[in-house]
C-alpha cells in the first residue's frame, strides 16, 4: 500500500513538474503592466485650502514593479494640443501644489494601490484654471546590456480656483474636405476666450446616401483658457469607397452648436487608381470607336471633301465653259 502511495506521488510530481517550470518561466518573462484611474482630475478649490485626493494604481501584469509617483506642470501648444510637462519660465508651477507622503511604492502582480496625495492651493493663487499632471512610472532598474523600459501613465489635473473669472468661448469652424482618402476625418475648432477651462462634448454621425448610420462619434475634451482646440474625429477603418454624410453637434458652456451635414466622397488610393484606369479605358474605347467608325467617317469626310471640290470645281468649270462659250461666240 505504501509502495502504491509512493508511486502515485512520484507520478504526480513527475507530471506536474514541467508545469511548475513553465509557470516560473512565464513569471520571469511576464509583461510589465500598469493601470491607473482616474485618467484626469477635474476639481474646484477655494484659495488657501488643502484637499486630499487619491489615485488608484493597478498592476494587472505578472511581475511586481517598483513605481514612483510625482507631479509636473501641464500646458499645451498649438491647436492640436501638443502636451508639455516642463515648467514654463515666469509661469506658476502648479506641480508645487502637490505633495505625496511617499514617492516610491512597490506593487505586486495583481495588486491595487490607493495612493493618496495632497493639493494645497496657495492663498495667493489667482482665480481661474490651473493645470498639472500626476505621473505614475515604473521604476525598475536593471544592469543589462541594452535598454531599461519605464512605462509611465499620466492623469491630468484640471483645477479651478474659485473667484471672479471670465468663462467664455466660441465655436470657430466645422470643416470636412469633400474628397478624402480613408479614414474619413472631420475637424471642429473651439476657442476658449476665458480664464478657466470648460468641457466640450462632440457628437457626430456618419450616414450613407440612403440615410443608414454607419458610425457615431462621441468625445469629450477640456478646452484650456486662451487656447483654440482642434478636435478631429476619425471614422476608423472607413470603407475604400463611398459617399457619406457627416453631421452632428458640439456642446460647451451653455451653447449647443449644430454641425450641418456635409457630404464626403471617400476614395482610397487603390480606388482612385481603378477610376483612373477606367477613365483611360473609356478614353481608349472612344478613340478606338472613332477609329473603328473611322472608315465611314473618312468616307463621309472624303464625300464632303469631294462635294466641296465639286462645288469649288463646278464654278470653275462653268466659268471655263462660259469663257469657252464666250470665246467660241467670239
Amino acid at each position, binding site marked *: 500500500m505504501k509502495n502504491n502511495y509512493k508511486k502515485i506521488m512520484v507520478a504526480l510530481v513527475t507530471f506536474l513538474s514541467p508545469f511548475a517550470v513553465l509557470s516560473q518561466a512565464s513569471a*520571469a*518573462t*511576464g*509583461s*510589465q*503592466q*500598469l*493601470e*491607473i*484611474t*482616474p*485618467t*484626469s482630475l477635474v476639481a474646484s478649490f477655494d484659495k488657501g485650502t488643502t484637499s486630499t485626493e487619491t489615485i488608484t494604481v*493597478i498592476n*494587472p*501584469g505578472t*511581475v511586481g*514593479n517598483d513605481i514612483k509617483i510625482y507631479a509636473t506642470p501641464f500646458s499645451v501648444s498649438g491647436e*492640436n*494640443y501638443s*502636451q508639455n*510637462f*516642463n515648467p514654463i519660465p515666469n509661469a506658476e508651477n502648479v506641480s508645487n501644489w502637490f505633495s505625496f507622503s511617499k514617492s516610491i511604492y512597490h506593487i505586486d502582480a495583481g495588486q491595487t494601490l490607493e495612493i493618496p496625495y495632497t493639493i494645497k492651493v496657495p492663498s495667493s493663487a489667482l482665480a481661474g484654471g490651473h493645470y498639472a*499632471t500626476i*505621473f505614475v*512610472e*515604473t521604476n*525598475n532598474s*536593471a*544592469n*543589462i*546590456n*541594452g*535598454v*531599461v*523600459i*519605464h*512605462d*509611465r*501613465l*499620466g*492623469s*491630468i489635473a484640471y483645477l479651478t480656483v474659485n473667484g471672479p473669472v471670465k468663462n467664455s468661448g466660441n465655436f470657430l469652424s466645422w470643416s470636412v474636405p469633400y474628397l478624402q482618402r480613408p479614414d474619413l476625418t472631420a475637424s471642429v475648432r473651439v476657442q476658449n476666450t476665458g480664464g478657466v477651462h470648460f468641457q466640450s462634448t*462632440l457628437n457626430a454621425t456618419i450616414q450613407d446616401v440612403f440615410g443608414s448610420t454607419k458610425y457615431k*462619434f*462621441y*468625445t*469629450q*475634451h*477640456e478646452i484650456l483658457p486662451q487656447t483654440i482646440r*482642434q*478636435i*478631429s*474625429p*476619425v471614422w*476608423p*477603418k472607413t470603407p475604400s469607397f463611398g459617399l457619406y454624410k457627416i453631421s452632428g453637434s458640439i456642446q460647451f458652456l451653455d451653447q449647443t452648436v449644430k454641425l450641418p451635414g456635409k457630404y464626403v466622397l471617400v476614395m482610397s488610393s487603390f480606388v482612385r487608381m481603378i477610376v483612373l484606369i477606367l477613365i483611360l479605358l473609356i478614353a481608349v474605347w472612344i478613340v478606338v470607336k472613332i477609329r473603328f467608325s473611322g472608315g465611314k467617317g473618312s468616307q463621309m469626310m472624303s464625300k464632303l471633301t469631294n462635294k466641296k471640290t465639286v462645288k469649288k470645281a463646278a464654278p470653275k468649270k462653268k466659268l471655263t465653259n462660259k469663257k469657252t462659250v464666250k470665246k467660241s461666240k467670239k
Partner: protein
Amino acid sequence: MNISIKNLKRSIFGLISLTSIGLMGIASAANAYTSSTANTITVAVNPIINISDGNSGTTTLSAITPTGAGRMSSATDALSVTTNDVGGYTVTIQMAGASNTLVSGANTVAASAATTASPAALVVGSGTAAPTGAWGFCVPSSSGNGTYVTTFATCTDGATSSIAIPTGAGHLYAPVPVAGSPFTLFNTSTSSVGTYATTVTFAAAVNNGQASGTYTGTVVFTAIAT
C-alpha cells in the same frame, strides 16, 4: 349516452379549470402591474488607462563582438496601451534623462545622428575614430484607431545578434529624444476605446574602438489621456 354525459362533464370541468387558471393569470398580471415601480439601473464605469510592456521592463540586446567595420545587435519590445477614456490619448517615447546615450561607467554609445523626421542606418567610425558606436529605435508596425507614426515603417531588422551593420531601406533608426522633448508614437483626439499596439525595435552598433562593458539607457513610454 352515459359516455357523452361523462364527456360533457369533463369538458365543463376542463373549461372551468382553464378559465380559473386564466383568471388567476390575469389577476397575478394585474397584481404585478399594480405593484411594479420604475427602476432605473445606473452604473458608473471609471476611466482607466493601461500600459503593457512585453519585456518586463528590460529590452536586452545580444552582446556585440565588434569588428573594425562594426557589428550590430537589435531587440524588439511589444508595447500596448488600452483606455476607455472618451477623450482619446497620446503615446510618446523619450529618454528618462537629459542625455540619450547608452552609458557604461565613463563610456558611452552615442545616439544615432539621424532625426525622428528622417531616420537613417546606424553609422560607426573607422577604428577608434568617432563615432565608434551608435544606437537608436524604430517602429516597424503599429495598430490602433488614430494617427500613428509611419515614418519608421521600413524597419525590418527585428531581433538580431552581432551582425554586420545593415544599410539602406529596412534598417533606418532614429535617436530616442531626451526627456522633455518626447516623440509621439500615437495620437488620437477622439473616442478611442480600444488598444494601441506597437513593436519598437532598439538597435546598437559599435566597432572595435568601443570600450567593452555593459551599456544601459532608460527609455520612458508615456501614455496619457488627452
